[in-house]
């Protein structure tokens, strides 16, 4: 009995201590009102949105808060303070040049700070089309390692897939690698990202227009070096049957005579093997030559280095309206920003979870399958969000 009393006493004392401890911390969660303005895409008339769903994802906790919009009236949004990523999806009806369209609409904003009682938020909306034509089906950018643990590079590749119902042509298709790094966010001046991508190396598939058809549901492989890499690295694979190969820098170029080469528009593409750079696919407008492109799209951008000195770089723009598909790549531990306008790709995918991750070699990013038609044609998922559309750290499809 005494012992029981003692126990009660101890519990009571402990309770006091705990309550006292609790009282010290103010655990009330601060909340803020979020006011919302949605800006419809420019140039559209009589825009009517419906079935709009907003998802606020808190970056630190990963908690999603979903809100449904009632017609075009913004919902009442009260959120715990934090840093949010906002995604928005819905239907839209609009008129363009007198024609009425029904499409899907989206919005995206990163790093939204909600704090201080009330916040107003402006989300620009953009259209998207799930049935785009050519897409990146797979990007193998990491290369392989030899049994001795050395890097091997020549076996990197892209796979381009016809996701449409029509025969499309690879002739004149441009592939470009970003000049910026997704692991280093900088304030570039001027900031052209809303209207154009800033490529580093640019390559183009040769052809007169209809030389290289890609049939619906079919793909082409663009290899760095279209050779049987098993001769050089038993851990690699045979790319000698690729449809195209890159022309690399003189000293590391290998030319398989039976595989046509891509045309280098700017620089030589040596794909970033840690995956810090994004890729886009697009076309120059009808009738635009490479020289004309270079003449009209050259620009100089700069950023301020950490020591205060600006750094200037010469580069090109590749307008967003010319882009067919885009894939942002980064590394989870060091991701800082995406290198395309969110309308092109609002997410990103990866191989390797930390910088220089040895586990990344021999892995690729592969687009997920949306559905298979009754005729067997596979439709790949293309929602312009690589986070959702791609399988990260996948086994390369060409690896036997």
């Amino acid at each position, binding site marked *: 009995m005494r012992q029981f009393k003692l126990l009660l006493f101890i519990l009571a004392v402990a309770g006091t201590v705990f309550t006292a401890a609790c009282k010290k911390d103010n655990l009330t969660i601060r909340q803020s009102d979020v006011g919302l303005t949605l800006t419809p895409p420019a140039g559209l008339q009589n825009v009517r949105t419906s079935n709009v769903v907003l998802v606020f994802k808190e970056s630190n906790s990963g908690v999603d808060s979903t809100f449904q919009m009632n017609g075009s009236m913004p919902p009442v949004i009260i959120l715990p303070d934090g840093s949010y990523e906002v995604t928005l999806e819905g239907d839209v009806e609009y008129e363009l040049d007198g024609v009425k369209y029904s499409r899907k609409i989206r919005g995206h904003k990163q790093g939204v700070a909600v704090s201080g009682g009330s916040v107003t938020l402006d989300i620009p909306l953009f259209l998207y089309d799930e049935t785009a034509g050519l897409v990146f089906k797979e990007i193998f950018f990491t290369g392989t390692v030899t049994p001795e643990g050395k890097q091997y590079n020549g076996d990197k590749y892209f796979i381009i897939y016809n996701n449409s119902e029509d025969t499309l042509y690879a002739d004149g298709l441009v592939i470009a690698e970003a000049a910026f790094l997704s692991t280093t966010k900088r304030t570039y001046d001027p900031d052209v990202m809303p209207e154009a991508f800033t490529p580093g190396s640019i390559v183009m598939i040769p052809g007169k227009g209809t030389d290289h058809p890609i049939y619906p549901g079919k793909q082409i492989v663009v290899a760095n070096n279209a050779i049987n890499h098993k001769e050089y690295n038993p851990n690699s694979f045979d790319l000698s049957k690729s449809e195209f190969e890159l022309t690399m820098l003189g*000293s590391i170029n290998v*030319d398989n*005579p039976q595989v046509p080469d891509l045309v280098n528009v*700017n620089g030589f593409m040596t794909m970033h093997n840690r995956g810090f750079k994004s890729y886009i696919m697009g076309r120059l407008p009808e009738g635009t030559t490479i020289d004309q492109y270079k*003449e009209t799209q*050259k620009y100089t951008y700069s950023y301020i280095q950490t*020591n*205060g000195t*600006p750094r*200037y770089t010469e580069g090109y723009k590749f307008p967003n309206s010319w882009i067919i598909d885009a894939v942002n790549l980064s590394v989870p531990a060091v991701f800082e920003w995406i290198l395309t306008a969110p309308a092109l790709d609002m997410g990103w995918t990866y191989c390797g979870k930390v910088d220089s991750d040895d586990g990344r070699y021999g892995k690729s990013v592969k687009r997920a399958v949306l559905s298979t038609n009754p005729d067997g044609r596979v439709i790949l998922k293309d929602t312009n969000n690589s986070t959702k559309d791609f399988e990260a750290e996948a086994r390369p499809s060409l690896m036997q």
Partner: protein
Amino acid sequence: MQFRTFSANGGRFSFGPLPFGTYKVSIAGMLFKAPGKTVHLHKDQQVELTVEKALQTLQEVFITASEAKAMTSTSVIDRRAMQHLQPSSFTDLLELLPGGRSKDPALTTMNRIRLREAGAPETGYDISSLGTAFLVDGAPINTTANLQSVSVYVANDPNQYRNTTNRGVDMRTLSTDDIEKVEIVRGIPSVEYGDLTSGLIKIERKKGYTPITARMKTDGFSKLFALGKGFNVPGQDMSVNVDLGFLDSKSKPTDNFTNYKRINSSVRAEKRWENSLRRMKWAGSFDYATTVDNQRTDPDNGYAPVDKFRSRFNRYVFNTSLKNEVTRLGALVKSWEVNTQVDYQRDRMDVTKWVQARSATVLANALTEGEHDATFITPSYAAELLVDGRPFNAFLKAKMNIGFRTAAITHDVKLGLETNYSKNFGKGQVYDLTYPMNPTGSARPRAFDTIPGMLNQSFFAEDMMTFNVGRHKVSTAAGLRGMSLPAMDGKYAIASKIYLDPRINMRWALPGLPAGQHRLQVTLGAGFGLHTKMPTLDMLYPNPKYTDIVQLNFYHNNPEYRKANVATYVADGINYHLKPAVNRKLEFNGDFELNGNRLSLTYFHEKLTSGFRTVARFRVLDFKVYDNRSVDAGNLTAPPATSDFDYEHARQFFSYSVTANGSALIKEGVEFQFVSRRLPGINTRFTMNGAWFKTNYVNSFPLYKGISANVIVDGKQSQYVGVYDYQDGAYRGQLNTNLTVDSYLPVLGLTVSASLQNIWYRMEQYHYNDGTPVQYMGVDGVLHPYTKESLEDPNLVWLKETTSGILFQKRIVPVDLQGNVKVTKDFKKKAAVSMFVNRLFTYTPDYVFNNTINRRSGFSSPYFGMELNLNF
């Protein structure tokens, strides 16, 4: 009855014949005292008196560098200062110079000297260290024949930060434990010393009797052991000194993959003869030193079991000298001296690397110019590379001093000759051409022994004139040195020319001005001189430059049918117009002394416009581009021949580098040092030294730059070269002061010092340019003016570099302060324990440049260590 005599150097004295009897022997001297000794003399007898330093010499105890009372600005660092500083290598002594600052040892990279400079640009200004001469016991450390380099031969050169070729003396190889005294001539050295531009380091090593001294130092980076002993050979006026040292260090306390070892040993003998007419001294020494750099690759970054780098230097030095001093009064020839040295090095760099073809790669390894069919490299292999260097240097110097008077002027004339011969007998880069370490770098092996030796012949003549005007004393040393390379091939502009260095230094000692109860001693000085440094063997006989252009790359799926063809071009890379680097120095000095407090000031201006730098030479090369599609790859039945392919002609720019006199280094500054007398009682001395430096680094040549590799014109790279006439370079400046407070307490055997080292500001400002080329050249080889139209051209516009005002704005980095403490405790002269802490505290405030905060605080951790010295 009293007999007197004077001791010779080293404290030896002789009375000659004395009558038998009992004598009391005592000494009288300024610096030493000894208790008297009673001697009963009845045969020839040797008497030893143990002396100790007289107490009044306390004022002579310096633990910092002292400014020598010499004809030009010179810092002197003696044994005691070194002991208190606790150096790991010679590098650490430079902290004591005006403008110096304590730095953590970096023993796994080359340690280069930069006298009187505010900045440290990475490339193009190696003349700073190459042009500083190091003399050990009168003979130079000659680095002319050093060719030990693997750059180009290995991708990611593991030797990059250790490469000493064309960079002069690597100070980490110099141990300080056998050094008695160092003189660092910052100003204008006597014409007796040449083949230098920046300065002169004179190292004098320990001679004569010493007890066994042992030193053990340890800090976070290294362990050091040193042993030394000086013997007197009984019955003869001869001494032998032996020194041994060992240093083991690593790049970071936590990194075992990169380390450096140094072993040095030295035996030195000196014998003296003396009679009433002359005093002769013979000295001979043998030195052996070896250093080993080891680097294994971190398993995370390479194939650990195979990849390694090891660079070993073995240096053998024989030195002998004979000096004769004429003591007869009135002799015209006061002394003559001959000094010779032969040194030989066996240097080996061994690199092993697992080479993995990053893709199928064409193997270009033809040794001759022309078109060659080629193969593809083996997919992976362990490549081995040896760089075998055997530099040999011979040195001979003969000098005569003549003294006479004309009217009131005392002349002290120095005449002499100096010969240096340098040759490398090594096998050079040795490796299997089929298994190159860097398959994509266009390098070929070269045997060093095919390079001719270099003979460097000089003469010098100097007259030191001293005269008194009233109580003023004026000294002037005016001299001329001539230097030439007589054995050079006539194609070189430098061949058989004599390069003259006139130099003059003056000192004017004013009579003491009364100031209170003391007199203010003022000495004013000025100097002017030219200093010439000859290029090295590597600059005069560079590696031939190979350019390999893949013309055909037919990588058929069937290995039998593969075909590759390479055009190889060879340029000799020789710049026949290369001249020596010449530095023009001007300086003014003032020296003020009052009651043992001394202030020394030096203003200097040095102008060197012909420093060595590697510059790019562009040339247009023609080659063929074979068309793989001209052969029906799908239906081959036999390997195709190169002639089966159609081709197009192509041409583009290729660059290679040559050495030219393109670096200008203009140094200006004020050096100051104030030394107080030791305050009585606590024996504390205040030393404040420092310097204001402003250095202008400029590439004095027009710049040729190839167009960005990104620009592809009709599928071809490198179709344009831009010519820029702006001055590529920067001003760098700094003002620093080091305040050292030291107490020497002989009674407690304690030396304590605290030093406050402050860089008040550092400045950097790049020379303005608007980035626009003045001309451009296409592959037709014709220069065109770069105009507004060029800016419209989609390709030529890439030659324009974007700049803005902010790039050329002066950046001032504010205060960088650190405090260091050192303590030495003596135990009855038998043992001493020292310890030091550098950066005990620091103050480095953040600063703003272009609205950007540069954060500097919180990045520094102290560097500390301790050592034990024993005397037996």
